[in-house]
């Protein structure tokens, strides 16, 4: 598909799909009555949730896209560096210690700080072990993630049942907890991360050839790789802080986007962001509609919908694909 056609198609379909998300609620499909206070409040809630879904989806997809390039691993996703383990532990600590009940910002702040601290520790270890070699980073991330999950289980084993339930619900991913101040903070952080990553799009292209080849092409790999890791983690941690753990978006959307616009990250990053945002908004609409008025965690929908869709995309061989 030519880029111009793609742009026109996106210009038409993206607002339509977002409108579908906005008009969908657990009470059904349709515009709330704006002449009443309840209707206006409902629309306000839905708008906040729609934007949250879009920003979280975009952040996860962009983060996955960047990590797949730096780690040169098709299975890399935003949680590969232990962000999910760190974020979950941070959230669990906030809930278990009762700090989460003091202010609504305590839970997302705890998850965010723990996720960023996890990245810092992983970068320090990986730098000492192998200078940001992809396999070192992945192994360090897997080990750190497993250790953090064990610590989470330890915290939960001492926690009250209500806390265990809250942590489990948070880990399944949910977009209903967003508030406007928190959303604006997350939008700011994700925008900053996206800008940093877009600035390094050419570096990501070069990194596909390998770290040494990229260095030969003029990329300051010792600076650029930690910068990309930090920006990708910043986006994912901001998303985790507002929505909990939502899987699959960061893994599949970059692959689907790559099928559409190719491997050039100057195009791939923005297309992944829009694709991830729209995908999560639609998944959230389904999460509210499928068993309405009961709402299911959006993470369940992303996995159930995204998995088969991804497999279909993979099996549809394009003419230029290698055998």
């Amino acid at each position, binding site marked *: 598909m030519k880029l111009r056609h793609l742009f026109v198609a996106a210009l038409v379909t993206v607002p339509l799909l977002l409108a579908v998300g906005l008009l969908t609620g657990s009470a059904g499909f349709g515009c709330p009555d704006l002449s009443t206070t309840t209707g206006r409040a409902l629309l306000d809630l839905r708008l906040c949730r729609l934007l949250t879904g879009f920003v979280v989806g975009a952040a996860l997809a962009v983060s996955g896209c960047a990590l797949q390039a730096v780690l040169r691993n098709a299975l890399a996703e935003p949680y590969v560096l232990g962000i999910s383990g760190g974020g979950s532990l941070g959230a669990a600590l906030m809930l278990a210690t009762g700090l989460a009940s003091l202010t609504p910002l305590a839970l997302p702040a705890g998850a965010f700080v723990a996720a960023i601290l996890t990245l810092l520790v992983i970068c320090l270890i990986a730098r000492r072990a192998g200078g940001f070699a992809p396999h070192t980073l992945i192994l360090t991330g897997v080990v750190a993630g497993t250790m953090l999950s064990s610590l989470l289980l330890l915290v939960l084993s001492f926690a009250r049942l209500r806390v265990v339930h809250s942590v489990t619900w948070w880990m399944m991913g949910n977009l209903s907890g967003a508030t406007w101040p928190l959303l604006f903070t997350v939008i700011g952080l994700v925008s900053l991360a996206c800008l940093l990553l*877009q*600035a390094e799009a*050419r*570096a990501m*292209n*070069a990194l*596909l*050839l*390998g770290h*040494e*080849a*990229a*260095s*030969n*092409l*003029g*990329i*300051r*790999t010792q600076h650029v790789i930690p910068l990309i890791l930090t920006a990708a983690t910043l986006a994912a941690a901001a998303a985790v802080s507002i929505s909990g753990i939502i899987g699959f978006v960061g893994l599949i959307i970059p692959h689907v986007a790559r099928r559409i616009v*190719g*491997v*050039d990250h100057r195009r791939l990053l923005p297309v992944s962001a829009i694709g991830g945002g729209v995908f999560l908004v639609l998944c959230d609409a389904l999460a509210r509609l499928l068993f309405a008025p009961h709402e299911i965690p959006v993470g369940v929908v992303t996995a159930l919908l995204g998995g088969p869709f991804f497999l279909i995309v993979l099996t549809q061989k394009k003419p*230029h*694909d*290698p055998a």
Partner: protein
Amino acid sequence: MILLDKVSAAYGTRTVLDNLSLHIRWGERVALAGANGAGKSSLLRVITGHLPATGTVRVDGQNPCRLPPRRRARLMAVVPQEIPTDIPFSASDFVMLGRTALLPRFGAPTAADLQAAEEAMRLTETWDLRMRRFPEMSGGEQQRLALAMALSSRPEVILLDEPTSHLDLRHRIDLMRLLERLCKERGITVLMVAHDLTLASQFFSRIVLLHQGRILSDDTPANVLRPDILQTAYGCPVSAFPLPDTPAICVIPRA
């Protein structure tokens, strides 16, 4: 242009370059030969600053380890031994990667960038492949594109690590003639790792033969490609004889 003085390097405890000294002048074309593990690729990595070494390493008077990567990329380009072949770049996008150090951070390549990439593709006869995807191509076509990528930045030095391994006979000769032309017309310095010694003797006036991280011989093909020297370097009996009507020396390992 390239100066190495008493250079030693190691991977962990294994020494790969041992007190090696070498001087390559501006615009010179030098072939680097030796058995597997003799230190050829390691020598290229020392010159690009990727393998730390003791002793003195200078490229155009500067220590490559201390050169900013962008400046280093403009000074020298590398054609690697292995290229990841599974990345579906189009041929033209792949060649444009060679100009990464010169491209703006945001925005499209300029007319000068496009012109440099086209020129590099025409020189390597890959212009007709520009719309094709990299993984669809043969090993030889990919190797020519890797050379085009290196040339697109218009470097002063080109380091090539066995660039003819996937090329057919005609394209081997074409590549050698191209390197000869680049040296003569643009003063580009070429250092190429070569396993095809017969081909190297035809197109290089100087061959550096490495053995166990040291220079065993550094001279004209006629003085380096001698059976006794080659037997020491490769550990097997070798016949070497001049081919009539050509400057080439035919090198054949004996069973």
